[in-house]
C-alpha cells in the first residue's frame, strides 16, 4: 500500500518540500552569515523569524485593518490591492526583523566583544532593572516604572564596565544567545494578547492552482515562496559579492585583525551582517504566514533548529550552501515522512545530517564565506 502512495505523491511532495526548503534556506542564511563573520552560532535568530511573523500579522490586521473573516469567508483580495497588501506585509516583516536583529546584536553580543555602546547599555540596564523589579512588585505598571527609573544608574554602571573593553570568552556569546532567545519568546508569550496560543493571520491570497506539473497542482502560494526566496537570495549574493560593504563583510569573515588594520569598520560590518540576516528571516516569515496563516510565540524554535541544520548541512558560513542545505532538508523530510510515516520526520532530517557530516565534515559545499568566492 505504501509503494503506490509514494509513487502517486512524489511530485506533490517535491513541490511542498521545495517550498518549505526555501523558507529553511532563507532563515539558514542568517545563521550562516553571522557564523561566517563572527564564528558565532546565533541561537536567537529563530526569534528574529518569529518577530517577522508577528510583524506580518500586525501589518495585516492593525495597520491595514484586514479582518480574519468577512461574512464567514476568508478576506480574499485580488489584483493590485493584493499585491499592495503582500508588499506591505513583506516590508513590515523585513523592517521589524532587521531592526530586531540589529538590536539583538547591539544588546546581547556587542558588549561581550568589548565594544559595548550606550544603546546596548540602556537595553541591558532596562532588562536588569525590570527583572530586579519582579522581585519586589507584581503589577506590570510598577515593574515598568521601576525598570525605567532603574535604567539610568544601571546603564551608567554598565557603560563604565564596557569602557574596560574586555572581550568575553567564546562560550559567553553562546549563553547570551540562548538567554536572548528565551527572553524574547517568553516576552511574546506573556505579553501577547493570546498568551501561549496560536495566532491566525488573515488570508488574503486565495490559494488557487496555477497549473499542473507531472499531474500535480502547483499552487500560487508555493510559486510565490519559491520565486521570492530565489530572488532574495540572488540579491543577497549580489550584495555580498559586488558592493563595497559586501567586500567589507568578506574581509571581516576572512581575517578580522587584518580587516581592521586596512580600515574596515568591523563593528559596522557586523551590524550589517546581522541586518542582512534579519531581513532574510523577515522575508521568510512573511512567506511562512502566507502559506500557513498562523504564528505562535515559539514558532521559531523548531524552524530555527531545522534551518540551523540546513546551514550546517550545506556548509555553515557558505551562502550557497544554505540554499542547497535548505532544499535538501525540505525534500528529504517530505520524502522520508511519506516513506516511513510522519513521526519519523525529524529522525530522518538528523540522520541525514549525521551521514553527510561523516563523509563531508564541513558540509555539502564546505565553509567558504571567508574565501573570496562566496
Amino acid at each position: 500500500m505504501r509503494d503506490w502512495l509514494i509513487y502517486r505523491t512524489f511530485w506533490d511532495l517535491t513541490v511542498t518540500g521545495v517550498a518549505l526548503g526555501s523558507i529553511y534556506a532563507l532563515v539558514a542564511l542568517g545563521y550562516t552569515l553571522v557564523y561566517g563573520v563572527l564564528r558565532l552560532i546565533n541561537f536567537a535568530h529563530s526569534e528574529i523569524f518569529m518577530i517577522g511573523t508577528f510583524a506580518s500579522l500586525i501589518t495585516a490586521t492593525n495597520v491595514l485593518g484586514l479582518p480574519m473573516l468577512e461574512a464567514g469567508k476568508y478576506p480574499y483580495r485580488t489584483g493590485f490591492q493584493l499585491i499592495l497588501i503582500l508588499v506591505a506585509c513583506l516590508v513590515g516583516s523585513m523592517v521589524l526583523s532587521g531592526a530586531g536583529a540589529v538590536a539583538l546584536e547591539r544588546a546581547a553580543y556587542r558588549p561581550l566583544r568589548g565594544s559595548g555602546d550606550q544603546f546596548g547599555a540602556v537595553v541591558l540596564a532596562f532588562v536588569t532593572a525590570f527583572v530586579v523589579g519582579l522581585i519586589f512588585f507584581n503589577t506590570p505598571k510598577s515593574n515598568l516604572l521601576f525598570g525605567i527609573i532603574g535604567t539610568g544608574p544601571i546603564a551608567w554602571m554598565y557603560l563604565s564596565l564596557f569602557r574596560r573593553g574586555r572581550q568575553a570568552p567564546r562560550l559567553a556569546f553562546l549563553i547570551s544567545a540562548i538567554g536572548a532567545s528565551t527572553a524574547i519568546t517568553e516576552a511574546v508569550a506573556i505579553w501577547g494578547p493570546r498568551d501561549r496560543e496560536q495566532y491566525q493571520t488573515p488570508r488574503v491570497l486565495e490559494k488557487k492552482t496555477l497549473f499542473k506539473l507531472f499531474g500535480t497542482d502547483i499552487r500560487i502560494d508555493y510559486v510565490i515562496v519559491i520565486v521570492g526566496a530565489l530572488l532574495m537570495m540572488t540579491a543577497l549574493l549580489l550584495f555580498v559579492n559586488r558592493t563595497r560593504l559586501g567586500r567589507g563583510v568578506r574581509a571581516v569573515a576572512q581575517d578580522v585583525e587584518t580587516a581592521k588594520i586596512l580600515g574596515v569598520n568591523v563593528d559596522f560590518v557586523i551590524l550589517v551582517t546581522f541586518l542582512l540576516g534579519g531581513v532574510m528571516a523577515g522575508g521568510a516569515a512573511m512567506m511562512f504566514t502566507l502559506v500557513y496563516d498562523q504564528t505562535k510565540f515559539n514558532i521559531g524554535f523548531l524552524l530555527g533548529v531545522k534551518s540551523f541544520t540546513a546551514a550546517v548541512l550545506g556548509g555553515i558560513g557558505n551562502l550557497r550552501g544554505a540554499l542547497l542545505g535548505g532544499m535538501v532538508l525540505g525534500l528529504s523530510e517530505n520524502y522520508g515522512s511519506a516513506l516511513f510515516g510522519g513521526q519519523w520526520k525529524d529522525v530522518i532530517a538528523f540522520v541525514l545530517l549525521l551521514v553527510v557530516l561523516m563523509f563531508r565534515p564541513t558540509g555539502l559545499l564546505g565553509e567558504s564565506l571567508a574565501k573570496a568566492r562566496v
Partner: protein
Amino acid sequence: MKKSTLLRVGAIAVSFAFVTAACGSDNDSSSSDTVVTADTAAAAGVTCNSVSIAFFGALSGDAGNLGKNIRAGADLAVSEFNTANPGCQVGLVDFDSQGDPAQAPALAQKAIADKSILGIVGPAFSGESKAADPLFDAAGLALITPSATNEALNDNNWKVFHRALAGDDKQGPGIATYISKTLAAAKVGVIDDASEYGKGLADIVKTTLGAAVVASDSIDPKAADFSAAVSKMKAAAPDAIFYGGYYAEAGKLAKQLRDAGVTATLVFGDGVKDQGYIDAAGPAADGSIITCTCADGASNAEFAAAYTAKFPGETPQTYGAEAYDAAKAFLAAIAAGKTDRAGVLEFLGTYDAAGVTKQIKWDATGEVAGNAVYAYKVDAGKIVSLGLIK
C-alpha cells in the same frame, strides 16, 4: 579572609532574594483563587476548616481553552457550595500544566504537598494523566478527570482514578460506527498526533474500521507543515478522514487538507470540540464532525442558567458539565464530613448521585457507568449537537 566573608554574606543575600522571589510568585499564583478561611459566621450548613479541591490541567498553551472550560465548571460547583455553606468555605487551587506531560509530575508533587487539597478535578489530558496519576495514587489523593479519555488509563490499578465520562474504548467504536454507518464512507484516512490520547483513539478507530482504512499517518503537532500527511490523503482520496489529536493542530490540518483540494468529511474526537478549532481553521472547519463522550452542557437548562449567571455572557463549553459533576462529588464528600484524603477516596467508592451529565457512579476501575457517545457538527462557525450516536 575578609573577602571570603563578604562573598559568603553576598551569597546568603542572593539566595534569600531568590527564595523570597520564589515564594512571592508561589503565593501569587494560588492565593487569588484559594479562599481558605475559617469563616466566623458559621450559620447554616456544614462546617469545615481549611479544605480545598484542585484543578489540574492546561489553562494556557495550545489546548488551554479545554482546561479553562473545566476550571469554570469546577468553579461553579465550588461557589454554589460556598454560598450554601457559609461555615465551610472550600478553596479551588489551580495547577496549570499547559497540557505538558513533562511538567505534570512536578505540579502533582506540589498539589500533594498542599495538605488542604482533598481531591483533584483533572488531570485534564491523557498524557499528563499518565505522568501525574501514579504520584496521586501513591499519595492516596483522589482524582476525577472530566476529560482524559485514553482507554489504557484504567489498566494501571490506580485506586484514586475516576473518570466523569466514558473512555476512548467507548468513543472509538462510536466514531467508527458514525463513519461507516451515518457517513457511509467506504474509504477512510486516519491521522494522529502521536500523543497518548490522539494515537490511542486513532488506533481504536483504525482497528474497528479494519479494511476501510486506506491511508494513515502521524503528524508532529509542534510542526507547522503537515504536507506529507496531506499529500498521502490526497493520493488515497478517502471519503472521510479521522484525526486523533487536539483542536489547535486540527485547525491547521483542516486548513491544509482543504487547501490541497481534499474534500473528504473531517471527523474528530473530543479533543477538537472547542471553538478554538473553528478559529484556527476558519471556513475550512465547516461540515466537520466532532464526537465526544461528553454531554452538551448547554442542553441542561438548569445548569446552563447557573453557568451563565456565574459567568455572564458565557455558555457551558466542552467538559464544563463533567467538571461540575466531578467537583460536586468531592463537595458531597466534604459535606459528609470527610476531611482527610482517605475518607474522600472511600466516599467516592460509594457515591451514587444524579449529575448534570448522567448518573454518577463508579465501578471498581473508576469508570463511570454508561457508554454514551455524542456527535456534533460544525455549522456556519458554530458547534451544534447532532445527538447520540446509535
